[in-house]
């Protein structure tokens, strides 16, 4: 594709598009502090909060003896609106997605810290029109808004194809949320297309409303669990993926661009057993199992430390990290929204969430525009 064409796309009314490449490719980390639910402050005693937002990118955790200060790309305090979270976090990811980059938005945090509210919006309501709707519905709207505008501008020369899939990873097994009858699915790799879920249903989308319908339908199939500690906690990771393909005809040359947008709602971080986030806990041997099922993980950790020597580790990463490998230190625009609950009872989990977010900031991504030129200039 001629460089000029891309230049046009950038210059036209989307000035913010220039910023991603200037800012570099480190993963963006946003922290959002939810307000405590009503009555919490009273029961927690005064001053019931374990943290305070100092500025739009620093947060202080009241740890003892020394308070800790964390710096992130953006810190949203309790008053921050859904709209402002969307514009500061997701907007630029959706825009780069239109330009052929892969993008991923994660919500991370303890159960009850507001992940679902941030990503989806308030439960039990029609989120798609609700003023409190979350990042995902807003991303849909914005994506299709951009597509429509692009189409109008380019006329018949340019066409778009959007497809989506929605899967869930539970107990290291993959389920298709768009086809509740399907059994466990598998991850495979394609030399041209990267990692994909073999056999997952792909639904063609033509509007934001349609995308939203697919999302709500799939959401209902998610697995949740309740314990006496947590009223409701999601035990699975949900990954909603939109593939945006654009085709542009320019004389005899056809430019095809494709990009993925992954919207991820992670399982409550306090229950995550198989990612690197869990800190120091020991893995238990099952009481009945003959095997010490995690010995391998311990040995793997030992080998991991081994100084740059050639070695092979028999245990692959978890399904989630494998699926999103591109988003973690791979080749995409990625941002993480770390959700925290400010109550002092959540101090431990909040600290570990902030530590995780701090580590995530160190991951660097390198985004490359995916362009494929077909046809001859003959």
């Amino acid at each position, binding site marked *: 594709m001629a460089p000029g064409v891309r230049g046009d796309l950038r210059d036209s009314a989307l000035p913010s598009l220039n910023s991603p490449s200037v800012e570099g490719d480190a993963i963006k980390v946003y922290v959002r502090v939810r307000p405590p639910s009503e009555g919490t402050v009273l029961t927690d005693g005064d001053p019931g909060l374990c943290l305070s937002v100092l500025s739009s990118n620093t947060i202080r955790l009241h740890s003892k003896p020394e308070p800790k200060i964390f710096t992130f790309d953006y810190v949203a305090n309790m008053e921050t609106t859904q709209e402002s979270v969307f514009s500061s976090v997701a907007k630029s990811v959706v825009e780069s997605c239109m330009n052929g980059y892969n993008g991923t938005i994660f919500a991370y945090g303890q159960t009850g810290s507001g992940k679902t509210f941030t990503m989806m919006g308030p439960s039990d309501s029609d989120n798609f029109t609700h003023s409190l709707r979350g990042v995902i519905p807003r991303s849909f709207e914005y994506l299709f808004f951009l597509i429509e505008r692009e189409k109008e501008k380019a006329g018949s020369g340019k066409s778009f194809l959007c497809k989506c899939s929605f899967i869930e990873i539970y107990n290291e097994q993959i389920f298709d949320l768009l086809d509740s009858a399907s059994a466990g699915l598998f991850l495979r790799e394609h030399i041209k297309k990267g990692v994909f879920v073999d056999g997952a249903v792909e639904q063609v989308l033509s509007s934001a409303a349609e995308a939203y319908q697919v999302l709500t339908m799939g959401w209902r199939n998610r697995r949740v669990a*309740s314990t006496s500690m947590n009223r409701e906690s999601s035990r699975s990771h949900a990954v909603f993926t939109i593939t945006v393909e654009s085709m542009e005809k320019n004389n005899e040359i056809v430019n095809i661009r494709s990009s993925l947008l992954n919207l991820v709602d992670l399982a409550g971080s306090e229950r995550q057993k198989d990612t690197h986030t869990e800190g120091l806990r020991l*893995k238990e041997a099952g*009481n009945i199992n003959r095997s010490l099922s995690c010995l391998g993980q311990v*040995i793997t950790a030992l080998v991991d430390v*081994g100084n740059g020597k*050639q070695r092979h580790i028999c245990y692959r990463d978890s399904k989630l990290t494998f699926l999103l490998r591109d988003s973690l230190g791979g080749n995409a625009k990625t941002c993480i929204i770390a959700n925290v609950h400010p109550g002092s009872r959540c101090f431990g989990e909040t600290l570990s969430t902030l530590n995780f977010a701090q580590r995530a900031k160190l991951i660097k991504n390198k985004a490359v525009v995916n362009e494929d030129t077909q046809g001859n200039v003959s």
Partner: protein
Amino acid sequence: MAAAAGGGWAAVREKFRAARTLSAVESRKDPETEPYRSKYSARALLQEVKQLLSAAEEGGEARLLAVRRAVLEYELGVNHTDTEELSAGEEHLQRCTQLLEPHRLSPDCVSLYIQAQNNLGILWSERDEIKTAQTYLESAEALYNQYMKEDGNPPLDPSEHFMAEEEKLTDQERSKRFEKAYTHTLYYLAQVYQHLEMIEKAAQYCHTTLKRQLEYCGYYPVEWALNAATLSQYYLSKQCFMESRHCLAAASVIFSQAEQAPSAEDNETEQDQQDLRQRRAEIARCWIKYCLNLLQSARKLLEDNIGELDPDRQSELKAQRKKEEDEKEKGRKKAVLFGTSDICDSVLAMEEKVSSVYPLDFQEAREIFLVGQNYVQEAKEFFQVDGYVTDHIEIVQDHSALFKVLAFFEEDYERRCKMHKRRIDMLEPIYADLNPQYYLLISRQLQFELADTYYEMMDLKVAIGNRLEELDSHTIKKINSLAQLAIKYYELFLDSLRNPDKVFPEVLEEDVLRPAMVAKFHIARLYGKLITSDSKKQLENMQTSLEYYTFLVDYCKKYPDAVRAVETELELSKEMVGLLPTRMERLRAKLCPFI
């Protein structure tokens, strides 16, 4: 009264048994929406048992009661920790150990005491207090050792305290359960040491855990084999080839037993078969790494300061080895051996197939290479490019690395060059197909590897050419085309670092700094090596070469931190930046003698 107590006792036993079944068996069938339902019911039952026991407290024998209460506290402690209620769990477990403290070395208490300490270890680790966990677990380990030394009879299993006389376990079963509890202690300690970064100790405890699993038949063969194979990779990183080979041989033996054994359920799915094939391929990959490391370490020992085989060093090492062979077998540590006699025999037979000492000449290196290459084929059978892109390419990269290190041992330059050509032939087609949008990192690795291989081949051709009286046109053409190809791949690599607007980064990231500088440096050298009779062309090449050398010098001047990564290259570049302009001046003068 006695009858009533007896009847009451039967009810207590019944309730206790029900609670255990609920928490161990039923809880696994709990619906996802209520994962702890059975655990909660079990907890209620245990509380009832506790009530009943208190009621019977008067008149009972104090010690017996204390031990029974300790069992209940233990069960309640485990129940609470299982359901994420740590503080309550801790209280119960503490009460359990307090009750048992005076009797912990007696056969009816020792096992329970160790298990309570295991659980306290886990509990504290969940609070990220590894040091505290460590003290509990190490004291459990010490208690086991002390008991085995002073008594050693199979102790009672905790569950027996709530069994009728006729249900009591056999000594064999008791011993099995006791040993299992201790194996768990070791397994938790392995993790504690890992978290405390006492790596060697952690590895030793993993090793011992594996050994005990094998001894007490408490293992799934496939999983055991994978663990042993992974452990071998730890030993590789420590250059302990004998231990590494032993782990791998044991892994292969145990794995093939698993393959041969008819599976427990006849309706073995295709997925299980697939899994099994994948595991086999994983173990093969560990063997590949073994061969590769052995060869590479030998190369390190043998190479001189320019990376060629040093014959003096070679004969020195051969003499040394001869001496060591006489004292052989002594070094074998009995402790690291896996398995009982018949497994041990198979493992030893497996080990025979490949050496664990450094190869010192081409013949020895070739034998190891061939073993590695066989495992490459085996691993590729499963990890095909369609579906397993990353794994497949990693295996091909290993194959290429095997050829590379074998070439080091080859004295004949023509044959050595052919080995490198084999590397090109396997890497190039894969690179061509790969989409860098998803495989940027691998794509860069391949670019660099291809460039380096062409570079090496070009150097070899130059060396071959230097032996001739005069360079023939065929050799010149060959040298030039190899150099061009090397340049092409180095440039592709450098291009991959550009940002979307095709601008080369002002500051290079830490992880690509060295490769990028080396690429620049090699390109500079390559332009210097291009042979042409056209002086104008030659001047151009020198100019390009100078630009690349200058890049290195300027970059390091601007970012002095970079110097550390490329010291030798920088020194040579500075030299060239000094020399080249004079040379070019001379050439120019020759071109236009009248100016």
